[in-house]
C-alpha cells in the first residue's frame, strides 16, 4: 500500500516536471517577441577598415543614441570592417561585443562602451540596459527608500537618500512600478526616455483601493456602507476546494463553518448572524456580475451522504478579489436577495500592453488531524461482559483475556491522502484588448477511503475597446468536477449511518473479513445494526459529476460624456449526475442484492441586466448615478431511476436494465423568475461629505398573487473628518464616520410555496400499484419575502500614513415577516403551512485592525479581526414555541433544541445531567428515577414533580459563538516570507452525538476510552456511568454537550523567492511550504469542534457532531513560476 502511494506521488511529480519543461522551452519564443528601442532601431553600417569610433559615429547618425567611450576603446581597433544593412542595433552591438570583446551598457539614451579584460572567456551580457532617475514627492522633495520594480519581474531597487536610483533592466521597454508607502503606486513607461523624474502623489494608503460595490465601483475612501475586501492573493493563501472556505478568519462579520470536512463538502457562511429560520441563510454570490444563490441541495443530486458544495465547482485560484457586502446600504442594490449579505467575486483579467504566463502548482499530503481513543477488543469485552452481568444476563463473550487489541476500525478507514493543484494562466493584451486564460486542475483525495474531489476548469476573460464609444467583454468559466463521496454524514445511526458512524459503533472484536474473505457485520444482539465500515467505504460508488458553464457577456456604450449604458447577458448552466451503487457486499444492499441509482439534475439560470451610469464632477461635487432594469430566471430539473437485484456488481449504476428489480423512477421541475428595477445615487462634496441612496424593486414569481412586488430602499452617509480644515494632526491619516440604514429581503423559500398542491399518494388495488392523488399543501396567497431592516454605524481610522488602520462597525438587524412553518391544526388535514410570522434580531460589533510594524528590509505586518453577534428570536408569531433541531430515531433523540422567543436560533434543549447516583439512598432521595441503580445517570428534576419528563428540559447550550476572531500576519526578510492565519471561535457549544453510542456502556457498540473509568462499586468518583446492557435512561443531556471553542492554526506558509538573476528568461520563481490545521487548541473531545452535521438539511440544527467526516491536517509544497 505504501509503495503504491509513493508511486502515485512519483507519477504526479514526473508529469509536473514534463509540463514545466515544456513551458520553459516555449519561453525563448516569448522573449523574442519583446523588444523595441535597441532592438527596434534599425541601422545600416558600412565601414571598411576603419575604427570602432567610425562604427559608433555611424550609429549615432542614424539613431538617438550617444556613445561614451575612453581611449582604450578608441585606440585598440583600427582595422574594423562591418557591412550590415537594416539590422537591429541590438544585434549590431552583439556582434561588436563578440568580435572586439566589448561590453555595452545603455543608460537612458547613452550607451557606454568598455573593454573586457582578456582572461574572461565569455561575455555574459553583451549589452546592459540601465536607467537612472529620481523619485520625488508632490512637493518636489526626494523620497528616499522608494521601491522601483521592473514590472512583471523580481528585478528592483530602491532610491538612495537623495531619491536617486539606477536600475539595470532585463527589458529595455519595461514598465517601472514605483511605490512608496503612503503614496499612490505609479507605473512609469521608459519608452526611449532618458533620465526619469518620477513624482508620486500622496495616497490615503489602502483606502484608495477601488472597491466593487455591485453595479459599479467606488474608491474605498468614499465608501459609505460596510464592505470588506479580500485580495486574490489572500484567497489563495488557504488551499481549499471552494472559495467560501478561504474567507474563514479573514473578515470581521463573516462566520464560516465547514459542515463536513469531506473534500468538496458543504460549508455554511453566515454574514452577521442567522437572519432566517426557514428561509435561506447563505449570502448571495455575484460572480463577475452574475448573481447566484448557492443552494447546495439543488446540486446534491438526491444525496445519501454529506451535501456537496455548489461553489466547489468553481476555481478558487482565478479570483482577483472578493468583496463582502455586509450592511443593508450595500446590499439594497440586490433587494430581495440582500438580507444575508452579498459576496462579490471578481476574477482575474489581463492587462493592456503586456504578456505573461503564470504557472502555479502545489502538491501535498493530508492525514486525519485527530483520531478518537477507543477501547481495544480486550477492554471492550471486559466492559460488555460487565454490562451483561450487571443486568443479570448471560455475558456475550468468553474470557476477555482471550482477546487482544482487535480491529482498529479507524485505521481501517483512514488513509494518507494526496492534494494537488496545477494552474496555468496566460494573460495580457494589446492596446485595445486584454485577456486572461486560466486552466486549472485540482485534486483532493480524502482521508477516508474512496473519497475525493477532482476539478478541471478553464476560464476565459476578455475585454475589448471595440469601438471608440463601445466596449465589449466576456467572462466564461467552464468546469468539470467529480465528487467521490464516501457515505458519511448521513445524520442517521444504525443501518443508515455512514462510514464514520459504522466505524465508531462496530465493536473491535469483529474482524474486517471472515475466513472466506467476506465482510463481517455487527450482529451482537440488541446492538445498532451497523454494517462493515470498510465495506461501506470501499465498495459503493457514490460520485457526483458536475459540469458547469458560467458565462456573462457585456457591452458598454458611451451615450454621451459621462453617460454610459451597459447591457449584459449571462447564463449559468450546471448539469450534475450522481452515480450511486451499493453492492451486495454492503449490509444495506445485501438483501436487495445491489442497489443502483442514477440521479440527474440540470440547473439553467439566465440573466439580462441593463444599466445606465452617469457621473458628474463639478468643482468639489461628485455625483454618480446608476439606474437599471434586470431580469433573471432559473429552471431546475431532476430525475432519478433505480434498480435493485443485480447478477453482478460490475454494472454499478451504468446499466440499470441489468437489475432484476427496477424501482419507480422520479422526476421534477421547478422554475422561478425575478424582474427588477434598481437605482443608486452617490454624491460627495470634496471627498468630505458622502451621501448615497439605493433602491431596488423586485418582482418575484415565488410569492403569492397579491405580494409579488417589493421595494428595498437604503440611505447612507459618511463624514471624513480628516478632510476638514480644522483637522490638523498629520499623524492621523484617516478618520471617517459612517452611518446607514436600509431594508432588504430574503426570497429563499423555494418555489410554488403559495400555491395549493396535490401530490401522488399511491396505493395498491388488485395487487397492482394504482395512482392516487390528494391534497398535500394548503394555499397561502398572502405569502411574501422576509424583510430585514439594518442599521449600521461605522468608524474608519488610519494613522501614520495608514500604517495602522482600524475599521469598526456596530449593527442592528431586525428580520420581520419571518417565513415560518406555522403549525396548522392537524385536524385540517395539513400539519404545517408557510406563513409570514415572527421576527428576530442580530446585533453585533465588528472590529478589524491592520498594522505595518516594519517596512524596512524586514517587513512585518499583522492583522486581526473580531466579531461579536447576538442572535435572538423576538417573536414566533402564531407559531409559538416549537421544538427544532436534530431528530435521530435510532438513538432516541426527538429534538435537540427549541425555537423560543428570547432565545437564539440553534440552542440546545435537553435534560440537566446531575452526576451519577452513588447509592440506593440517593436514588430514593431523588425520587424521579425509581428504577435507577447506583452508577446510573442522575437528571435534575427541575419542576420537582417526581418524574423526569419533557417538562424537565432546559436550555443547556447555544450553538452560536460569543465571538469569532482571526489573526493573520506576514513577515518578509529578503527573499524569504512567511504568512500565517489563526482563526478561532469562542463561547460555542457542540453536541457530541457520537457519545450517545460511544459512551452508552451497553456492551454492544464500540466505546470511548473514557469508559475505562466507568462507575463500579470500587470506582465511584467518576462521571462515567456503570456498564449496563439496557443502557438505562440514557437521554440527551448536558453530558453530551461540550464547549466547542477553538483556536486553530488554519494556515502557515513559508515562501522563498528565487532571485531572478539566477535563471534566464524567468521573471519570478517562488517555492513555498504550507501547513494547514497543524494545531487546534480546544477542549472538545470529538474529532473537531468545527462541525455541523445537519446544517445541510436544516438551518436550525447547528453545532451537532454525528458521524461527520473528520478534518485533515495538510502539508503542501508549492511552486509558482512567472514567465
Amino acid at each position, binding site marked *: 500500500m505504501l509503495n503504491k502511494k509513493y508511486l502515485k506521488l512519483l507519477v504526479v511529480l514526473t508529469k509536473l516536471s514534463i509540463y514545466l519543461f515544456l513551458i520553459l522551452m516555449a519561453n525563448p519564443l516569448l522573449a523574442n517577441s519583446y523588444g523595441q528601442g535597441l532592438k527596434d532601431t534599425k541601422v545600416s553600417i558600412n565601414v571598411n577598415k576603419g575604427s570602432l569610433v567610425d562604427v559608433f559615429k555611424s550609429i549615432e547618425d542614424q539613431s538617438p543614441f550617444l556613445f561614451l567611450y575612453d581611449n582604450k576603446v578608441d585606440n585598440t581597433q583600427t582595422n574594423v570592417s562591418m557591412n550590415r544593412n537594416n539590422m537591429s542595433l541590438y544585434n549590431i552591438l552583439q556582434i561588436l561585443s563578440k568580435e572586439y570583446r566589448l561590453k555595452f551598457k545603455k543608460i537612458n539614451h547613452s550607451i557606454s562602451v568598455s573593454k573586457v579584460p582578456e582572461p574572461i572567456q565569455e561575455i555574459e551580457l553583451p549589452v546592459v540596459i540601465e536607467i537612472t532617475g529620481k523619485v520625488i514627492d508632490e512637493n518636489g522633495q526626494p523620497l528616499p527608500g522608494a521601491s522601483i520594480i521592473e514590472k512583471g519581474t523580481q528585478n528592483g531597487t530602491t532610491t538612495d537618500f537623495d531619491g536617486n536610483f539606477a536600475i539595470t533592466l532585463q527589458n529595455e521597454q519595461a514598465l517601472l512600478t514605483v511605490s512608496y508607502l503612503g503614496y499612490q503606486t505609479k507605473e512609469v513607461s521608459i519608452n526611449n526616455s532618458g533620465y526619469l523624474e518620477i513624482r508620486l502623489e500622496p495616497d490615503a494608503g489602502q483606502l484608495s483601493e477601488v472597491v466593487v460595490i455591485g453595479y459599479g465601483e467606488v474608491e474605498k475612501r468614499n465608501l459609505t456602507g460596510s464592505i470588506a475586501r479580500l485580495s486574490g492573493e489572500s484567497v489563495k493563501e488557504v488551499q481549499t476546494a471552494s472559495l467560501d472556505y478561504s474567507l474563514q478568519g479573514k473578515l470581521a462579520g463573516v462566520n464560516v463553518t465547514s459542515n463536513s470536512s469531506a473534500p468538496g463538502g458543504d460549508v455554511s457562511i453566515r454574514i452577521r448572524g442567522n437572519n432566517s429560520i426557514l428561509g435561506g441563510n447563505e449570502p448571495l454570490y455575484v460572480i463577475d456580475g452574475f448573481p447566484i444563490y448557492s443552494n447546495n441541495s439543488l446540486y446534491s443530486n438526491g444525496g445519501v451522504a454529506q451535501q456537496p458544495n455548489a461553489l466547489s465547482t468553481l476555481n478558487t485560484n482565478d479570483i482577483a478579489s472578493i468583496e463582502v457586502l455586509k450592511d443593508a446600504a450595500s446590499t439594497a442594490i440586490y433587494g430581495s436577495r440582500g438580507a444575508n449579505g452579498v459576496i462579490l467575486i471578481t476574477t482575474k483579467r489581463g492587462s493592456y500592453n503586456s504578456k505573461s504566463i503564470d504557472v502555479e502548482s502545489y502538491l501535498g499530503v493530508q492525514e486525519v488531524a485527530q483520531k478518537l481513543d477507543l477501547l481495544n477488543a480486550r477492554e471492550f469485552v471486559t466492559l460488555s461482559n460487565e454490562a451483561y452481568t450487571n443486568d443479570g444476563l448471560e455475558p456475550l463473550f468468553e474470557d476477555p483475556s482471550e482477546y487482544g487489541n482487535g480491529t482498529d476500525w479507524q485505521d481501517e478507514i483512514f488513509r494518507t491522502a494526496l492534494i494537488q493543484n496545477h494552474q496555468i494562466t496566460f494573460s495580457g493584451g494589446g492596446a485595445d484588448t486584454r485577456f486572461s486564460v486560466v486552466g486549472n486542475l485540482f485534486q483532493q483525495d480524502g482521508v477516508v477511503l474512496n473519497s475525493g474531489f477532482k476539478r478541471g476548469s478553464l476560464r476565459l476573460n476578455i475585454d475589448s475597446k471595440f469601438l471608440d464609444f463601445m466596449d465589449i467583454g466576456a467572462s466564461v468559466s467552464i468546469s468539470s468536477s467529480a465528487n467521490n463521496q464516501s457515505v458519511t454524514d448521513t445524520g442517521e445511526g444504525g443501518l443508515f449511518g455512514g462510514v464514520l458512524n459504522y466505524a465508531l459503533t462496530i465493536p473491535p472484536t469483529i474482524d474486517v473479513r471472515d475466513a472466506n474473505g467476506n465482510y463481517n457485520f455487527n*450482529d451482537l*444482539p440488541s446492538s445498532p445494526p451497523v454494517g462493515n465500515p470498510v465495506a461501506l467505504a470501499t465498495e459503493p460508488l457514490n460520485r457526483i459529476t458536475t459540469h458547469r458553464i458560467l458565462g456573462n457577456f457585456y457591452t458598454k456604450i458611451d451615450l454621451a460624456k459621462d453617460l454610459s449604458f451597459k447591457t449584459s447577458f449571462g447564463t449559468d448552466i450546471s448539469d450534475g449526475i450522481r452515480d450511486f451503487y451499493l453492492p451486495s457486499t454492503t449490509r444495506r444492499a445485501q*438483501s436487495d442484492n445491489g442497489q443502483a441509482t442514477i440521479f440527474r439534475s440540470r440547473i439553467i439560470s439566465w440573466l439580462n441586466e*441593463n444599466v445606465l451610469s452617469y457621473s458628474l464632477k463639478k468643482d468639489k461635487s461628485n455625483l454618480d448615478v446608476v439606474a437599471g432594469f434586470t431580469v433573471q430566471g432559473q429552471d431546475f430539473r431532476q430525475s432519478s431511476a433505480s434498480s435493485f437485484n443485480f447478477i453482478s456488481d460490475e454494472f454499478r449504476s451504468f446499466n440499470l436494465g441489468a437489475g432484476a428489480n427496477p*424501482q419507480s423512477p422520479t422526476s421534477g421541475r421547478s422554475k422561478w423568475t425575478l424582474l427588477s428595477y434598481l437605482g443608486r445615487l452617490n454624491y460627495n462634496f470634496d471627498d468630505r461629505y458622502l451621501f448615497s441612496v439605493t433602491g431596488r424593486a423586485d418582482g418575484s414569481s415565488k410569492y403569492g398573487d397579491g405580494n409579488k412586488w417589493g421595494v428595498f430602499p437604503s440611505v447612507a452617509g459618511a463624514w471624513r473628518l480628516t478632510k476638514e480644515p480644522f483637522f490638523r494632526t498629520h499623524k492621523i491619516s484617516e478618520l471617517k464616520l459612517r452611518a446607514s440604514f436600509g431594508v432588504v429581503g430574503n426570497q429563499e423559500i423555494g418555489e410554488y410555496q403559495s400555491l395549493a398542491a396535490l401530490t401522488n*399518494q399511491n396505493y395498491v388495488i388488485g395487487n397492482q400499484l394504482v395512482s392516487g392523488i*390528494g391534497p398535500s399543501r394548503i394555499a397561502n396567497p398572502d405569502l411574501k419575502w422576509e424583510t430585514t431592516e439594518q442599521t449600521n454605524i461605522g468608524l474608519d481610522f488610519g494613522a501614520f500614513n495608514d500604517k495602522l488602520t482600524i475599521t469598526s462597525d456596530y449593527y442592528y438587524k431586525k428580520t420581520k415577516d419571518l417565513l415560518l412553518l406555522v403549525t396548522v391544526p392537524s385536524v385540517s388535514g395539513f400539519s404545517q403551512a408557510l406563513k409570514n410570522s415572527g421576527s428576530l434580531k442580530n446585533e453585533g460589533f465588528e472590529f478589524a485592525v491592520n498594522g505595518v510594524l516594519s517596512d524596512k528590509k524586514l517587513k512585518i505586518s499583522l492583522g486581526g479581526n473580531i466579531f461579536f453577534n447576538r442572535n435572538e428570536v423576538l417573536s414566533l408569531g402564531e407559531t409559538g414555541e416549537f421544538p427544532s433541531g436534530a431528530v435521530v430515531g435510532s438513538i432516541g433523540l426527538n429534538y435537540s433544541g427549541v425555537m423560543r422567543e428570547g432565545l437564539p436560533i440553534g440552542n440546545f434543549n435537553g435534560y440537566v445531567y446531575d452526576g451519577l447516583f452513588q447509592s440506593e439512598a440517593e436514588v430514593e432521595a431523588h425520587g424521579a428515577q425509581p428504577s435507577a441503580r447506583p452508577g446510573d445517570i442522575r437528571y435534575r428534576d427541575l419542576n420537582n414533580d417526581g418524574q423526569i*419528563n419533557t417538562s424537565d428540559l432546559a436550555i443547556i447550550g447555544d450553538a452560536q459563538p460569543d465571538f469569532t476572531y482571526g489573526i493573520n500576519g506576514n513577515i518578509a526578510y529578503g527573499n524569504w516570507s512567511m504568512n500565517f492565519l489563526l482563526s478561532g471561535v469562542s463561547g460555542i457549544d457542540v453536541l457530541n452525538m457520537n457519545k450517545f453510542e460511544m459512551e452508552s456502556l451497553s456492551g454492544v457498540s464500540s466505546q470511548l476510552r473514557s469508559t475505562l473509568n466507568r462507575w463500579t462499586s470500587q470506582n465511584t468518583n467518576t462521571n462515567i456511568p456503570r456498564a449496563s446492557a439496557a443502557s438505562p435512561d440514557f437521554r440527551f443531556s448536558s453530558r453530551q454537550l461540550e464547549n466547542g471553542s477553538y483556536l486553530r492554526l488554519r494556515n502557515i506558509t513559508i515562501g522563498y523567492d528565487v532571485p531572478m538573476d539566477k535563471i534566464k528568461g524567468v521573471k519570478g520563481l517562488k517555492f513555498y511550504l504550507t501547513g494547514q490545521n497543524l494545531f487546534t487548541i480546544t477542549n472538545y473531545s470529538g474529532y473537531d469542534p468545527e462541525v455541523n452535521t445537519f446544517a445541510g438539511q436544516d438551518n436550525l440544527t447547528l453545532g451537532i457532531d454525528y458521524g461527520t467526516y473528520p478534518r485533515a491536517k495538510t502539508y503542501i509544497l508549492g511552486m509558482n513560476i512567472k514567465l
Partner: protein
Amino acid sequence: MMMKKSIIIALLGLVIMGCSDFLQEEPYDFLSTTNFYKSEKDALAAVNAVYDILGSQGSVGIYWETHYLMMDLTTEESRLSTRTSQRKVEMDDLVWDATNIQASRLWNSSYIGINRANAAIARIPHIEMNEELKTRLLGEVKFIRALLYFNLVRAYGDVPIREEESTDLNVEWTREPKEQVYELIISDLKEAKTALPVSYDAVNVGRATRGAASGLLGKVYVTMAGNPLNDTSKWALAVEELRELVNAGNYALFEDYADVFSDQSENGVEHMFSVQFKKGGFFEGSLYNTFWSPRGNGGLTPLSGLEDVMAETEFYNTFNDSDIRKSVTFLTEYTNPATGETVSFPSSDLTSPACWKYFDPDGSGWRDNDNNWMVLRYSDVLLLYAEALNELNSGPDQEAYNAINQVRQRAGMPNLENMDVNSFREAVYQERSWELCYEGHRWYDLARQGRFVEVMQESGKEALPKHTLFPLPLDQLVINPVKQNPGY
C-alpha cells in the same frame, strides 16, 4: 454617429421587457386544485389517495406500523426488543405522555385521511362520469372515513368532527362528544353498505365491500355497547347487523389458519378488509416481515430481521400446545446460517419467541414486503357475533357456540359448551386474544372491555386508568387549547 445610434437601438431592442404574466408560477411536477377533479380518472385517483392513508409507508400510514405499536406493543402480548426508539419504548413501558410522537401520529394521519376523504366527497359529485361508479366511489370514501373516525373515537374519546375539505389556514376546533362522532360513523357506514358491491373483479380487489361496511358497523355497535359509552342498547343492533352478515354466507374461515397470513391467499374468503401492500420498490410494501423477525432467522426469509418487536414469553405460554395457532403465530427455533447452530427459544439469541404471523419467505426488501394488514377478517366477525349474542341474551345460545366453535375447530381446539354468560364472555375474550393477537386489536379490545388496567397489572405492566385513552398531541393543544384527556 449613425453606427452608434443603430447599435444603441439594436441593444435596446434586445432588452427583454417584462410582461404581466412573467411572474406567474407555472407548476410542472405537481397538480393544483385548479387542474384536478375533472374526470373519472381524477375521481378514481382522489379515492385511491384516501385508501393510501391506511398503508402509506412511514409515520403517516395508519396501519403501516402505528397500529401494532399502539394497539399491540402497549399490551401484554408483545414487547420491544430493540429498545432504541423513545416513542416505542414509551409505548411498551406505558409511560407515554402528550409529547409521544407515536400517539400524535395516529391523530395527525387520521385527519390527513379525513381531509382527503372530505375533498373527494366534496369534489366527486361535480365530476361528469359514470353514475354507478360515482356512487361506489363515494361509498368507498365514506367507509374509510368511518374507519378513521372509529379509530379516533376509540383512541382519543371526544374528537373534532370535520366533514368539509379544508381550504383556509385558520382552523379552530373543539372536541365533539363521542356520541356525535359515532352518529357520523354509523351514517357513513350505512351509506357505504348500500353503495358498495359484495365483491369486485380481480382488478379492483382490495377495495371496500358491502361486507366490510357491514362487519365494521357490527363492530362499531359492539364497541358502543362497551366502555366508555356502555350503551347496551347497541347489542341488539350488533346482533342484527352481524347475523345478516353471517347468514349471507359471503365469507368463511380458511381451513388452514396459516393461510390467513400467507400472501398467497391474500384477499381470500376470510379477508373482509385488508390494507393492501405490495413489494417492488414502489414504497408500498409492508415491514412486518423484517421488523418482527429475529436477527439471524436462519434464512427463513432472505433478509435477516430487525427484531423490533418480539412476543412476550408469558403470553406465548398461555397457548395450549395443541393449538394450531401457536406454531403459526410464533417462531421459536431456527438455524443460524452464519454459525450453522440451531437457535431455540429460550436462549440468549432468542430470549422470547418472535411474532411470526406475517412471514414472507420471498420477502427480500427492507420495509418492502407483500404481507397485507387485516383490518377486518371473518373470525373477528364470528367472535364479535358470539360476544354480542351472549350479552344480548345474557348467555350463549347455540348460534353463539356455533360462532366461537368455528374459530376453535380450525385451531384444533375442543368445542365450548355448557357455559354461563360470564364464563362464555371470558372465553370469547381469551379466544380473541389467541386468534387475533398481533393484528392491532388488543388495546381496543381491552379498552372497550374495561379490562385494560386490570389485565396489564396482572401481567406486571404498570398501567393507569389514563392509559385507556391516548393523549391529544401536545403541540396541537398549544395552538388550539382544548381539554386534554384526564391524566395527561
